[in-house]
């Protein structure tokens, strides 16, 4: 049977998930193998070295670099407070005395007799690493972190902004085709993962931020609103570190696009349950999509799916068009003709025939569809 490779986002009611949680630099692992952890538990932590401030003592005292040790009041490894004198000269006339104060609180890291620079380092900052998902520690990466495993619902979005967070899922619309209006965001949604339908405008997103909603998941947003929210245009899709006061995930794309029914129903089936959410997106090497993870089985599911999606498409599969002129339209694959076909732009491309709900059959480049879960 004909089939074609196609990327698709994962929307799985229940699957075995493993999350590798590692520090950016070596540190200390705080949990043991086999331990059950909550999403907010700290599993590892490290000290991020403090910022470094160079001070050119030789220049400031007008002495040669190899002489500066004679004028240092503090030595390598000494702690200093902000404004404390670290070096001074000893002139015969007191008026000509020059004293150099430390611009920061920290320690003297090094004194160079080649350059005449003194390096001061601020105290280290503690970097805690939370488990992010509720589950069991199944692997310890010595000095770096752990792998946490859980069985649960796994939904990938297409794009997100904002980092990791967690909270209870709250579906705020009745259908996946309904827009999330600002009035629909209420005080009771504080701390929640709010699920909208087709679209959320800037006023809705702002209201959600003001209300203290942890994360907002909708079908689409307008790029113009995102720009307003961020204060700049996102040039390349590398996100996750934004400090917007909310994590925002879109499941379908930019514009006003109903959330896929399957995704919406799955999220609705986990209404009221605690989820872990990340908006981090990286559409380059090591591709990362935003995600929603709800540990545990949905009510009607008794067994976890073992297969991770087959990665290709066959006749009968439901698909969504992801480019104009059919952007957002859903249909079923009818045929996968192998030969190159001339499309509307006059390009030669591999295509597939898609049957729409009304029975109409359209021709679409294979590159312009996305597989949907049955």
């Amino acid at each position, binding site marked *: 049977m004909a089939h074609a490779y196609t*990327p698709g986002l994962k929307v799985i009611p229940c699957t075995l998930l493993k999350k590798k949680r590692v520090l950016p630099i070596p540190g200390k692992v705080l949990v043991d193998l086999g331990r059950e952890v909550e999403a907010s538990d700290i599993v590892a932590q490290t000290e991020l070295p403090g910022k470094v*401030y*160079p001070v050119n003592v030789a220049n400031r005292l007008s002495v040669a670099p190899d002489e500066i040790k004679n004028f240092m009041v503090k030595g390598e490894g000494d702690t200093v407070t902000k404004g404390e004198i670290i070096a001074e000269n000893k002139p015969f006339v007191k008026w000509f005395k020059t004293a150099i104060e430390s611009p920061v609180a920290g320690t003297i*890291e090094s004194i160079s007799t080649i350059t005449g620079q003194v390096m001061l380092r601020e105290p280290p900052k503690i970097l805690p690493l939370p488990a992010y998902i509720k589950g069991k520690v199944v692997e310890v990466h010595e000095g770096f972190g752990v792998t946490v495993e859980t069985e649960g619902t796994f939904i990938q979005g297409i794009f997100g902004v904002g980092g990791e967070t967690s909270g209870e899922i709250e579906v705020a619309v009745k259908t996946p085709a309904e827009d999330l209006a600002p009035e629909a965001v209420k005080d009771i949604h504080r701390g929640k993962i709010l699920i909208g339908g087709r679209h959320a405008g800037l006023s809705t997103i702002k209201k959600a931020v003001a209300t203290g909603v942890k994360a907002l998941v909708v079908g689409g947003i307008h*790029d113009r609103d995102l720009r307003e929210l961020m204060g700049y245009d996102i040039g390349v*899709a590398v996100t996750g570190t934004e400090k917007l006061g909310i994590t925002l995930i879109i499941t379908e*794309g930019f514009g006003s696009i109903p959330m896929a029914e399957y995704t919406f129903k799955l999220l609705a089936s986990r209404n009221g349950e605690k989820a872990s959410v990340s908006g981090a997106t990286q559409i380059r090497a090591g591709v990362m999509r935003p995600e929603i993870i709800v540990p545990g089985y949905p009510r009607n599911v008794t067994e976890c799916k073992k297969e991770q999606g087959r990665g290709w498409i066959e006749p009968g599969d439901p698909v969504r068009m992801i*480019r104009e002129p*059919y952007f957002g339209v859903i249909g079923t694959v009818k045929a996968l003709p192998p030969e190159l076909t001339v499309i509307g732009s006059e390009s030669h491309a591999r295509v597939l025939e898609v049957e729409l709900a009304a029975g109409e059959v359209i021709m679409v*480049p294979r590159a312009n569809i996305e597989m949907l879960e049955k």
Partner: protein
Amino acid sequence: MSDKDLEVIVATDCGSTTTKAILIEKKGDTYRQTFRGEAPTTVEAPFEDVTKGVLNSITEVEELSGRRLLDGEKIITPNEGNTGADIYVSTSSAGGGLQMMVAGAVKAMTGESAQRCALGAGAIVMDVLASNDGRADHEKIERIRQLRPDMMLLSGGTDGGTITHIVELAQFLKAADPKPRLGASYKLPVIFAGNNKAQQQIKDILGDRTALIITENIRPSLERENLMPARHKIHDIFLEHVMQQAPGYPRLMKMVGAPIMPTPAAVGMMTEKFAKAKNFNVLAVDIGGATTDVFSVFSGVFNRTVSANLGMSYSISNVMAETGLANILRWLPFDVDEQDLRNRLKNKMIRPTTIPQTIEDLQIEHAVAREALRLAFDQHKSLAVGLKGVQQERSISDAFEQTASGQSLINLMRLDYVIGSGGILAHSPRRTQSMLMMIDAYQLEGVTRMAVDSIFMMPHLGVLAQISEKAALDVFYNDCLVRMGTCLAPRGLAKEGQLIMEWEVKVPGEKNLSGELRFGDIIHLPLEAASAKLTAKPVKGFDMGAGSGSRVEADIEGGVAGLVLDGRGRPFELPKARAKRMDVLNKWYKAMEMYPG
């Protein structure tokens, strides 16, 4: 391996979006590219292994050629009858390419040399640090901490000169303790290519914190640049450290019969070989999904720049951010709602492998491409300055002049040949689309021959040139370059409709072509002949390369698009008024037969 043993070659290029495979076979005395296949690059889940895309693309070649090349996941070597290949080679730009940070003592001297060295090796330069780069010292340290390059090139000072600046930079580097981009557990490779008298101090400072490699100074004296030893080290480290960390690359490295090259380094190699063989001034561009590379050879001097975030898919939104919506909209002969355009471009960014299905969508991509090409070319012009490239001589006064005036080596009037590659130029449904996109973006002047690398074969051929230069050049001339034709664009300005040039083209064995060019018009004529003689007589105030009003005779070539006489003047500006702009765009696109209808 000798050419005698080399009869069947498989080559792939793993791009950030697509992996492309080609089959090259020796037919008589000449190598020809015979079949090609492509597949999406598989760095994304569920595969996260670049070799899957490689195997998929080779499978397509197998299916089309009937030659069995794969035994499971292995390439069959050597070739026997209708099975196997003698060698498999590959380039790669997937995984974000090679990302480097460079440092030099003085920004316009060793800083610039270090930048050219890294760019020539095929790297993306994330930042250039220098003692006089205008940033406070703590800002430099913070910048080193933030960026996570694949490797760093540290230069500074002439041999035997002062060591203070370079030691200071090394101390900043040590204090910042930077981490490599891929894999937190290995040390960041740092290449030191600065003052040879500072080597011991650099070892003492960085020896235990980084994977330090010491090589020859890239600027042994103010008058001399020596980039090759450091470039070789960059390639070595790219293979030994960086590639080992990327998904699936350790497996790919075991499959190839020659070292994997960064894609831009391979394209640069082919550009240089072509320019040298023909004695041309050449401009080559590769516009990809994430980045746009520009290569130039002027008077034998090679330069390369890469615009890391100007591309047609992953970076399409950044083109919009950098140039502004108005500059994209100005190329469209129809109205588009701003919100709709923004959403479309963002949707391309988040689903980078989709392709335009309608003419309108295609025209939007062509508009973005013009801007990406233009911005990347501007960056190229600003770096391809003063120096004479890899091994060059210049006096101190030249160096000062360079920083003061920033004289670019790029002279459009002296440019002989433009080669376009990358999906948007090479896969355009009509060749005239690629031709006008490049004419618009570069504002070509005088007489310029133009070609496209139809299936983006320059990377494959560049890496193949390591094994067999003959095979690479054979395929380059016969199968890679698709001649588009020649652009004739007089420099000068006049009133619309005014006569600006008379011209005549003599084609051997065919009827001569001749006519007049009026200001504001584009004339597009079919011309397929590989060579023809042009006589152009611009009116006073217009220049075709010999000065205002001076007659020019030149060899030109025809091709799949033909002859384009661009009478829009230089410098070229689009009308500001919307209606007028749309009128002229429609007129020009119609003259070029760019779009149906």
